[in-house]
């Protein structure tokens, strides 16, 4: 089976990329192929990169509080461009109360501070299994 491909992205203007980089390395250590976009990406740029890189997952990281406007936009644009099969997950400084809204908008998992790397890796593996089942 081909390795799982993940695009890790920083939507918006937030410069906190410790989490995105640590998660990127953990996914790579777990055998996945990871592409990191770098800072200051618009939803449009992220979706373009996801399609171009032919990824299975997009991981969004935002600690600035802009997640409610930026995360759903990525999902919308993916669907619009016929790439709705790419699964989107997110993380950052995100209040518990925002999570149901993000889930409803198609963000499949939201990882808040304190999440273990293990949890994120197994979310991805489980999701892949479900797809192939």
């Amino acid at each position, binding site marked *: 089976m081909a390795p799982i491909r993940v695009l890790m992205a920083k939507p918006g203007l937030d*410069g906190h990329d410790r989490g995105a980089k640590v998660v990127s390395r953990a996914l*790579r250590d777990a055998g996945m192929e990871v592409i990191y976009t770098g*800072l200051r990406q618009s939803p449009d740029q992220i979706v373009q990169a996801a399609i171009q890189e032919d990824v299975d997952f997009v991981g969004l990281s935002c600690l600035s*509080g*802009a997640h409610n406007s930026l995360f759903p936009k990525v999902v919308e644009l993916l669907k619009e461009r016929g790439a709705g099969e790419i699964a989107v997950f997110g993380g950052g*400084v995100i209040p518990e109360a925002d999570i149901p809204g993000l889930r409803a908008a198609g963000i499949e998992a939201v990882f808040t501070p*304190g999440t273990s790397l293990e949890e994120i890796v197994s979310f991805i593996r489980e999701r892949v299994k479900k797809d192939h089942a």
Partner: protein
Amino acid sequence: MQDKQERLALWQKGLDKAKARFPERKDKFETSSEIPLQTVYTALDRPEADDFALPGEFPFTRGVQRNMYRGRLWTMRQYAGFASAQESNERYKYLLSQGQTGLSVAFDLPTQIGLDSDHPLSEGEVGKVGVAIDSLADMEILFSDIPLDKVSTSMTINAPAIVLLAMYLAVAEKQGVDWAKLKGTIQNDILKEYVARGTYIFPPEPSLKIITDIFAFCAEKVPNWNTISISGYHIREAGATAVQEVAFTLADAICYVETAVAAGLQVDDFAPRLSFFFNAHSNLFEEVAKFRAARKLWAEIMSKRFGAKAPKSLLLRFHTQTAGSTLTAQQPDNNVVRVALQALSAVLGGTQSLHTNSRDEAMALPSEDSVRIALRTQQIIAHETGAADVVDPLGGSYYIENLTAQIEDRVKEMLAKIDELGGAVAAINSGFIQRQIQDSAYKYQLDVETKDQIIVGVNQFTVEDESQPELLRVDPAVGIEQQQRLTELKGQRNAQAVEQTLATVRQAAEKGDNLFPPVLDAVRAYASLGEICGVLREVYGEYQAKDLV
């Protein structure tokens, strides 16, 4: 000496026996910087050179003043700002009424990146992590009813620092306050933005030129202003160890001084206004030792490397903030305790000002209640613990003195390495510093995963059902209102004056003249932040990060 070593050897035998029967909790004990720790420290471990060091004397290991907090306590300065200038102004007035002694302005991300609130990239970000400032009109509201000669104001602004400081000076003019009476700090530290914080605009070379312009302008016109706050805080937050924090901060500082000296400035004309900003993390003793070592290292760098003569040029004066990255979203009230201990380390380490984080900041911007507890934490340390009554109270501790010397040695090694690479800018361009920080961040996270590092409430001592505290919400309407205000302003101002002053900014940038006077004129004409930075973007170009993971 011989006697002491014999006694220690004997004692060690007893210890080995005891350990054979009762193994220790861990295989090895070490600090965040992987400095191995002995079971106990004795007079044999204390560096002799520091045997009779005193505060307020070279190399200032024990403090920058002779009597420190017995004279005046540190400045209690809570970083705040959100939504509109109006709402932030109200929060400032509340904090001042609660006994806070200095302001610290948080700007939103569009402001920090020199974009107006109506720029497409600003969507969703306006007023989120700080206050939105588009023009002098917003700045006037932000400081309304706050007399600028009575407060000191710190502004966390880097790439567009020249514009925001110009706005502050323009507000002072309108209040009739002499610039010589203004006290405060701009962060203005671009190098750490490239490696840790991310709000850069221009490439390093023009950025360093603007910083030097600010040094030169303020030395003459705003003599009491701290023109830069060279920051290890964010480097540490990004994952660096204590040693890396000090080393990379001092490497950046060396680069700023070299650049200014190369531009023809006299070191003693600007060095007294350089200030620093460090992180207070959770290993209490390592942090205290870190602050002491940093002071000593800087005094030596300034006197030996740069030949500074003015006594004030040698002083490493610093602001401290407790470590945001150690706050947990789980059992958030525990954060109050973390913050208190971290704040204590900053006070024991001799900080000049302090921000204590609020318990809810792993989830959102802090609520007013949480901010009050954070401020009260400082007041309790100041007035109830006795920590402020004796200068450098841990000085002379075998352990602290040893750790101070070890941090100093390790920082020197790293600085030598960075010199070898060609200095801070070269070390950033090659990705060396970014890689160092990332490696430490990843190692730390792996330690948490394996529980080599216990985080109370996260990987141990967890609870099932957590109640959710009330969080501060920034009204999403702020973005739209801010855009409307900007549109109105653009309709009302003198368009010709804006155009002319922006053209002068462009000329100065192209010719390499000091940018401060033309930027000040543009600000006075109500040119927007985005317009001024837009002109500079056209002249200087934008920094393209090389992000490697």
